[in-house]
């Protein structure tokens, strides 16, 4: 049933297994965190519906791929646009009105939660909990290529590399004029106005972009996790944690934090009973935030009591 060679797993190999699965999970957490940040940057709003957006991206693309047999890139484009637009609607209906008049600034918690409720229920009516298996887009595959005994699939490699690429892509985007404007709005709204920048427009664009990015994340997650309606919930909290540990609004921070979480988890799965995973994460979060109150890559609004 298996060859003797595959049997020999020394500690070093186990170490690589941890690393690989940690990086895989970490990549997804990081992507979610980044999509969080994109919205957060100019608006200072945590979109609680983010998890559901990711889920929409994953389910949507899965259907287009498996049911309608669209080519993967068309499907990807379609869901990114669709979810992007949806997020724009969210901004217009649920966020902008609340931000325009701040009631202790917490109104948006509820409105975004409400949007999350609406999406997840509509989806619950449309699809059951039966997950949809999504194959890795060719020529990639989920099969392990045993490189020097290190088990990693071509899709995992692609995912990790792509994540790095995307993170630095987004980072680069914030060095484009648009990105600089977004950062400017984040830093000083009035000053931005004086330069002729319209903060409202910036935040609308950020929402659309953040939504599309969430959809992309969902798409990338489905070959690993298989698309399901529960996917959002799984990724939301970890993404939130990654975003916070990394430093709100910091893309690179999210990358570091995402991998930190992923690897920590994978390590736990080997040495700790699953009941203690969150404990480890809590300790991680606390120790990072107490040393660096603004998160790993301290961002502008690292205000503490």
């Amino acid at each position, binding site marked *: 049933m298996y060859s003797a060679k595959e049997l020999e797993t020394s500690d070093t190999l186990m170490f690589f297994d941890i690393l690989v699965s940690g990086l895989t999970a970490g990549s997804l957490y990081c992507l979610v965190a980044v999509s969080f940040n994109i919205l957060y940057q100019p608006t200072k709003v*945590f979109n609680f519906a983010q998890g559901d957006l990711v889920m929409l991206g994953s389910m949507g693309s899965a259907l287009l791929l498996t049911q309608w047999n669209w080519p993967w890139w068309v499907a990807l484009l379609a869901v990114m646009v669709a979810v992007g637009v949806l997020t724009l609607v969210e901004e217009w*209906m*649920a966020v902008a*009105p*609340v931000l325009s*008049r701040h*009631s*202790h600034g*917490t*109104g948006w*918690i*509820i*409105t975004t*939660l*409400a*949007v*999350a*409720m*609406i999406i*997840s*229920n*509509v989806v619950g*009516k449309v699809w059951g909990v039966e997950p949809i298996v999504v194959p890795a887009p060719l020529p990639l595959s989920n099969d392990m290529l045993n490189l020097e005994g290190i088990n990693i699939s071509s899709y995992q490699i692609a995912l990790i590399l792509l994540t790095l690429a995307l993170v630095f892509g987004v980072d680069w985007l914030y060095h484009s004029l648009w990105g600089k404007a977004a950062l400017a709005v984040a830093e000083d709204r009035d000053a931005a106005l004086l330069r002729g920048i319209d903060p409202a427009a910036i935040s609308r664009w950020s929402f659309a972009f953040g939504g599309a990015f969430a959809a992309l994340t969902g798409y990338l997650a489905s070959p690993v996790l298989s698309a399901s309606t529960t996917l959002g919930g799984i990724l939301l*909290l970890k993404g*939130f*944690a990654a975003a*916070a540990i990394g430093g*709100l609004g910091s893309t690179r921070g999210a990358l570091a934090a995402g991998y930190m979480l992923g690897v920590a988890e994978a390590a736990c799965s080997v040495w700790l*009973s*699953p*009941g*203690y*995973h*969150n*404990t480890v*994460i*809590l300790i991680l*979060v*606390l120790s990072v*935030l*107490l040393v660096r*109150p603004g*998160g790993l890559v301290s961002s502008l*609004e*690292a*205000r*503490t*009591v």
Partner: protein
Amino acid sequence: MALVLLPLLFNGQFILFMATQALVMMLVAIGLNLLTGYAGQVSIGHGALVGLGAYTTALLMKDLQWSFWLSALAGIFVACGTGLIMALPALRLSTWYFALVTLTFAQVVTDLLVEWRSLTHGFSGVVGIPAPSLNGHILSPVQVYLTLVVCVVLVFLATRQLVNSRFGRGMVAARDNPLAASASGVSLWRIKLLAFAMSAGIAGLAGAFYAVQKTVITPEDFSTDFSIFFLLCIVVGGQGKLLGPVVGTLAFFLLPELLGPLQSWRLLIYGVLLLILMLFAPQGLMGLPFFKRWQKRVIVDVDIQFDSAISLKPVKNLDLTIKDLHKHFDGVKALQGCSLFVKAGRIHALIGPNGSGKTTTLNAISGFIRPDSGQVMIGTTDVSSLSPYQVAQHGVGRTFQTPKLLGDMSVLDNVRLGGFMNEHATAFEVVLNLPRVRSDDLASKVQALELLKFVGLSSRAEELAGELPHGQQRLVEIARALAGRPALLLLDEPAAGLSMSELDRLAELIEAISKHGTAVLIVEHHLGLIARISQSVTVFDRGQVLAEGSVKEVFKNPEVARAYMGREGTGDSM
């Protein structure tokens, strides 16, 4: 009263059961409102605290045959204690990180409830929790319900006590205006900790009842959604409003029953309703004008005759001595060896061109910035290394360039906030409404009214501070600073934006204040005012002392004129 008895009128257990559950939830929401609504700390982990209370109670009752009452007490302590272990570090973080930590904490708790099988019976949870009994007689569901009603009422009254006390004012200040809070001698961290401890304890109590009314509890009961539910309750009801959580919880329990046939679309409808509510009633149900009618307003009945001798007398007379103060902000030298001296009972003016370091000096004195070197002596104690609330407690009161009042609070309460450290009743006493509380309460109210009378605003004591015109806000802020009966009063551009008449009033006030032995240090551009009231002046330029002396001398000094008219450059900005 009839309302709480209503559920008893229906035959069948369902309504009663739901009513009981509603009360349990209400209990938690009332507690959470204290933390999130008043102290402004968003907790997404309260479900776990309820869980701790429930498990402690259930296990003690079932496995150790403790009585409900004792177990409940234990539950309260466990919830409170465990919560504090988490909150002690977390409360030092900013709001959102606090939310994250509470969220993770909640998951940890539920995980451990499973993991610690030997104690908690793992997934299957605690089954068959006995009903509470009072000396041998086992309470029926109705009796449990009534006990719970009593508890809710007591807790509600206790929180009302706390909210209307100095602690409540401190919490709101910590939420809306940390600067004003610490300038009034409130320790942000301690006040938040207090709020958390209270709400955690209440959650524990709720947990105890949750256990006995449900008779079976499993780790799954205390999920994240469970925690978020309470957040929804208070926001829907109106956070920071006493009745908010009550109304919010009721809304959530009545709605599904009213939906009836639409059941399977319930959650969707919730979502839409929430959205609509937040868009049209951002302050929650209690924020609706309809409810505004009967929201508590301060009623001022006591007509006091103003005895300035008492309210204006500083706790003790102290001088201010500043020696060789230095401060840099990245690369910019704000203060370069400033020194000045203000004698108790005198008015000293600090003037100079924009950005010459005047406000920086005030901030350094009141502890908002820590000088790189130099001393700030209040009497004989060096406060240069203390945090703002400690400095305030050493007898330093201040106002800000733009008045930092709490807009949603009555003018009277704003002034009373200033008296925070002169009240003595502990939170414990407040909750139990012991004698000292009432004396404190009356004293601070009378003092505040006197001060308002002194600044000529007693007629507006009931109004919301936010609704006052600018000039009057300044006067209120001065009254607040005085409420602490400071030895040293720092005024940062009090004249800015005042009308001529208000200006005269201000001048008289400041003189009156100093007459009673308070040292006044005033930063002001309006030289007319300076000339009129101050006995001595220090002129700053580029973070250094340019001239010192009586008003006349200083204004004769050509250097000063030049600095002002700006032939020379002025000091580094801040």
